[in-house]
């Protein structure tokens, strides 16, 4: 089985907001890495989880499924899920798959944090 070509770091820039920095490829083989990152974010007390796609090299259709699964997990934990750092191409994929109707896309990290940690969406 091919190994995941991805790493994810979790940081907490402000209270209750966790940012998952994605570096590499989101394919079916990224499931464990993404789940671990979300578990870390939850342990750190995040009520908002932001996915930073700035370092995303590649995503295929299985990767979209992983994002929906993550969305379900965050909803189960009563967490908000957002994203930033998406290139024009990946914004189009969010549109195509209609993921943008459930995962709020922000222009950058500062806006994402300001919006989700107390500002008006």
């Amino acid at each position, binding site marked *: 089985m*091919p190994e995941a070509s991805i790493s994810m770091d979790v940081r907490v820039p402000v209270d209750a907001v966790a940012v998952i920095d994605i570096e590499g490829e989101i394919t079916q083989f990224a499931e464990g890495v993404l789940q671990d990152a979300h578990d870390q974010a939850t342990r750190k007390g995040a009520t908002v989880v932001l996915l930073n796609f700035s370092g995303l090299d590649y995503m295929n259709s299985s990767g979209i499924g992983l994002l929906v699964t993550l969305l379900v997990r965050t909803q189960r934990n009563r967490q908000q899920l957002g994203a930033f750092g998406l290139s024009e191409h990946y914004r*189009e994929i969010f549109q195509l798959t209609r993921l943008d*109707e459930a995962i709020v896309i922000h222009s950058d990290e500062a806006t994402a944090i300001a919006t989700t940690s107390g500002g008006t969406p």
Partner: protein
Amino acid sequence: MTGDATPGKSRWAKPVEELSVGDLPPEALNLNVSGKQLSGAVQGFGQLWQKTYRVPLAGAAVTPQEVVKVWKAEYTTFWPEDSNLYGPVADLEPGDVGVINASQSGVRLSTGVMVMYADDESFAFALPQGHIFAGWITFSAHDEDGTTVAQVQPYFRTSDPMYELIFTVYFHRKEDEIWYHTLNSLAARFDVAGEVTHDAERIDTKLQWRNVGNIWHNAGMRTALHQIAAPVRSLGRIAGRKPDA
């Protein structure tokens, strides 16, 4: 050109507001595709499932890329005989839209798919409003310890309450039969008799009641109504003919 050099960009279809279908043969029934939106797992109603069907092509000297190339080129030949895919989908290029006509116990169903993603080792279908499933189906092949494994992975919620009921009591197993047939046929194409296996993961048990209105688009009901109304349409056509001079 936007100058966006994102890797894999050409492998994805462009977003569409609504689907449009190209030329179809006369026997194709296109009722529930043109004008419909795509419907992903977020827009579905039922429980969220990921099913994974696999067949190792043990003994076949074939790479994952070769398997996917044949799978794309001969896609419908691996389907059960009671299902057809029509439209400009010969090469399964991203953005291609096809119309599916399937028969279940004599009942005809018209729905469709759009090729959402395609590369050398996989391709994926997105599904329109009214399809039994809201989500995606990914077809792929990869190498496992020197053996090429072909895989089908539907990721979906059923679209509406009626489909959820049908899925629970009947189509859950019917879907298994369809993909077992597909993978067995694919294995036979490479002259091997691989053993198909599958697992089903229920990712979310919650129903999304906010999407109950999807039932308006239900392709099964719409196809049935179209068939019931066929005699009326025939009479209308006869009545509308001008008498011979």
